[in-house]
């Protein structure tokens, strides 16, 4: 079976498998939604995935590496997961689907100063820094709820 699959087909299958690997800190979005997957190479009998850390010191990287390796183990080939800064991850890489998933779970996507609960733009920055490196904290004056926003980097 494996031999019948061309590299391009395997690569597409790997990408859709990666779309099932959740971010450990915000599990409603996957590593694909976040735009962390820079490249997927299927070379001979081996799968190589290049991921971009959202933040340099992100403590979730080892968890993400383990989760990606575990998910791709079903392909029955050696898996290499590499993190690098060759291309800098920016918050513009979050996909439209990722942005709407963030919104639906109460996070404002980057560069969107509107309350994810009620949609009001009448919001105030409470803290540039939040519970993880990638988030800031806002307050909605309209519905009087706090919310977190993905930092724009």
């Amino acid at each position, binding site marked *: 079976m494996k031999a019948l699959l061309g590299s391009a087909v395997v690569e597409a299958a790997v990408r859709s498998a990666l779309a099932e690997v959740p971010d450990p800190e915000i599990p409603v979005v996957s590593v694909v939604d976040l735009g962390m997957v820079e490249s997927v190479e299927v070379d001979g009998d081996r799968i190589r995935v290049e991921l971009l850390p959202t*933040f*340099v*010191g992100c*403590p979730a990287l080892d968890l993400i590496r383990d989760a990606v390796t575990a998910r791709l183990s079903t392909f029955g080939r050696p898996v290499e997961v590499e993190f690098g800064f060759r291309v800098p991850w920016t918050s513009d890489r979050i996909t439209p689907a990722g942005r709407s998933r963030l919104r639906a779970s109460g996070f404002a996507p980057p560069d969107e100063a509107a309350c994810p609960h009620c949609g009001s733009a009448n919001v105030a920055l409470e803290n540039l*820094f939040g519970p993880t*490196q990638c988030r800031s904290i806002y307050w909605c004056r309209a519905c009087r709820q706090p919310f977190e926003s993905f*930092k724009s980097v």
Partner: protein
Amino acid sequence: MSTAVELLPATKNALSLLLLAMADDEFVIGFSDSEWTGIAPLLEEDVAMSSLAQDELGHAQALYRLLAELADDGRDADAIAFDRPAEAYYHARLLDHPRGDWADTIVRRFLYDTADGVRLDALAGGSWPPLAELVGKIRREERYHLLHAGAWFERLATSEGEPRRRLLDALSRMNPDAATVITPLPHDLALVMAGILEAPFAELEERWREGLRPTFERLDLPMPPRLADPLRARTDHSEAFRWLHGEFTAVRRVDPKAAW
């Protein structure tokens, strides 16, 4: 990421010193920031300082990794970070001051972040890909640090009475050491020749001063003086740093193999 770009021995030597200086700077200021966890003057600042500390230790780790690959002497990033005696650290003397009060912390951060920003700008387009790529990423995070420190610096300077008095006291302690972050490193010309650093540190120091001047003039604050002894900018560390070193190496000394 590969460090396997051919470097002349003199360039490699200068680059190692630069990486060590930058990594130790981020490492020491990160640990100093983390001393506010649980005791910052506001809950928001507790969160902010803890997050800043996490960013800086992450930057330090990435820089120590580059240094470990470049040195290739069997030491990994943790060994470089934790297994040196206090006197072998190469951070700027500005970061040797004890945590102090909130004004000390804001002044230290503001002076450090502005100087570090000039240094990062001069490295972002450099010819050694591993460092230029990492700096490109670090710069995006440091922007938030400068916004934070700048807003607090302004707030203390323009609040008459105790806030401004404490800020001035902190400046009188920190200003003499402010330029230690950006004063020339040994052999920095080799880095300029190799295209790794855009301009010598002497020029970067002038850029930093020019950048600070409008803010300091508007707020009527004394500018940092020239260093009395630039050669000792990163050596002869303080008693306060020896205490901090004892703290941050404690776990490693108890169990060198611990994974954390």
